[in-house]
């Protein structure tokens, strides 16, 4: 048994909705049934077989090869097993996923991990705007699980996030953690303006001092956090070596909202 692989044949002439291609939905289908699944998003019909060359037979482990930024909704609603994307992913990567793991070797479009509630997504490249944010029709952003963006993240990262953990290895755009309800975002590099805008609860952890902090965040000064020790050790156990130390400046805010959120600026 080898991973069920979908190799993009050429550049499709429309955006693709790949939400039917999850391990749970494919596990009882025969090859010809998979090939006839509709993935088009326009009036012109497009089936899996038109766009992809299919190899392998293990639906428990999916692989997309050669995909580009128009391949939307990869791993949407994923509940278990693994999807590897050898290429870029479009919008809504892992949208509302509940469990399992998605690994993207390239970059992802807008709303990666939007309203996800469990499992993990690792994006080796960049993520577009509103990653871990609110999917259309939802009231909350990410509700659980972990999103790792090794490159840069666009604006509105983790908007109205409720729970879960986001790590950004590169730089992050404006309004990071905007209107956040709870959860944790760890920034290894710089962030844009207005981080934590309207934040109610939750933690924004900065390894690099942010250039600009909203005036509605109040300074609590520097102190020791056992929490950072636990976080650092756990991250190390998952292969993320980030020196957080045990001291951080704590700012509370957004005082224009509930104000029980925090920024921890380490180092």
């Amino acid at each position, binding site marked *: 048994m080898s991973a069920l692989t979908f190799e993009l044949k050429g550049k499709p002439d429309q955006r693709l909705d790949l939400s039917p291609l999850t391990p749970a939905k494919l596990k009882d289908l025969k090859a010809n049934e998979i090939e006839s699944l509709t993935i088009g998003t326009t009036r012109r019909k497009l089936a899996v077989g038109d766009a992809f060359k299919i190899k392998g037979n293990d639906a428990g482990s999916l692989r997309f090869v050669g995909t580009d930024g128009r391949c939307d909704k990869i791993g949407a609603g994923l509940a278990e097993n693994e999807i590897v994307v050898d290429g870029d992913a479009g919008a809504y990567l892992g949208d509302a996923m509940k469990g399992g793991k998605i690994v993207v070797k390239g970059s992802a479009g807008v709303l990666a991990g939007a309203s996800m509630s469990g499992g993990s997504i690792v994006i080796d490249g960049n993520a577009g705007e509103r990653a871990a944010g609110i999917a259309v029709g939802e009231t909350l952003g990410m509700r659980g699980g972990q999103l790792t963006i090794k490159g840069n993240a666009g604006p509105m990262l983790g908007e109205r996030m409720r729970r879960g953990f986001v790590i950004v290895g590169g730089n992050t755009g404006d309004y990071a953690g905007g209107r956040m309800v709870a959860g944790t975002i760890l920034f290894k590099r710089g962030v844009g303006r207005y981080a934590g805008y309207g934040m109610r609860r939750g933690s924004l952890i900065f390894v690099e001092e942010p250039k600009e902090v909203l005036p509605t965040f109040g300074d609590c000064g520097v102190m020791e956090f*056992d929490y950072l020790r*636990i976080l650092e050790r756990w991250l190390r156990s998952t292969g993320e070596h980030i020196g957080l130390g045990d001291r951080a400046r704590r700012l509370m805010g957004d005082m224009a909202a509930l104000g029980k959120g925090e920024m921890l600026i380490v180092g």
Partner: protein
Amino acid sequence: MSELKLKGVTVVDTFAEAFPMVGTRIIITAPTPEWALIAARTMTGFATSVIAAGAEAGIERTLSPDETLDGRPGVAVLIFTMDTNKLQVQLRNRVGQCVLTSPGSACFAGLEGEKKLKLGASLRFFGDGWQMSKKIGGRRFWRIPVMDGEFVCEATTGLTKKAVGGGNLLVLGKSRAAVLSACERAVRAIDEVPEVITPFPGGIVRSGSKVGSKYKGQIASTNDAYCPTLKAAVKTALPLEVEAVLEIVIDGLTKESIAKAMRAGIHAITDGGAEQGITHITAGNYGGNLGPHHFHLKEIIA
């Protein structure tokens, strides 16, 4: 009564009768090993016997920084009671009054288990609304603001209903000093065994008890059969030359761990015991009808 000699000490052919208990383990960490021990000792103070102390608790072992979740020195504490509700109350009160209050401390689950006891999940209310919940690697922690920063406490800890309480050894000897010294050796040996504690002062009990009393409302009273001063008046279990008896009580997370601890204890007592004046090692039971766990000394040293 058939008897067995081990290095000149008589091991009486009897058994220790032990009871099912519920128990848990928690890990206390602190900035230094000393402060972790202070918090743990305070929390396990006055926890000798469920007869009137509410719980039986003790320090299982100390932990090095690389064994704990936060990379600080720690102590593993075991606590036991007769039922889950009592254990929940004891845990909340003891951690709340003795660990939360101890400078720089943090508190974590030390036992996995399907059934859970609330730890931070009840202590979080001390935060008066300023507490924060953080989930790290599937485990939930509460961060409760206190005057030296934050008290980090895991939300729950596992519970075991397979714990055993009341494993015991009675040590008889020709002088009080000899019996005490032999028991001290035994407690040190038992300290090395995982999953067990000896809840009494220094691990040793001088006032073994029997069930009931001539007085109404007194549920336990002195074990007269083992009181050397009463040899002539009661149905004594002591030979005339025995001057003192001490008991070691052992509680453990499993019955296997109790057996290991008793074995370690017996060997520590008999090593040099006879020369010191130790005459007998025996064990306490109630005829075998009260407790389901019987630890036969002969099988334990076999």
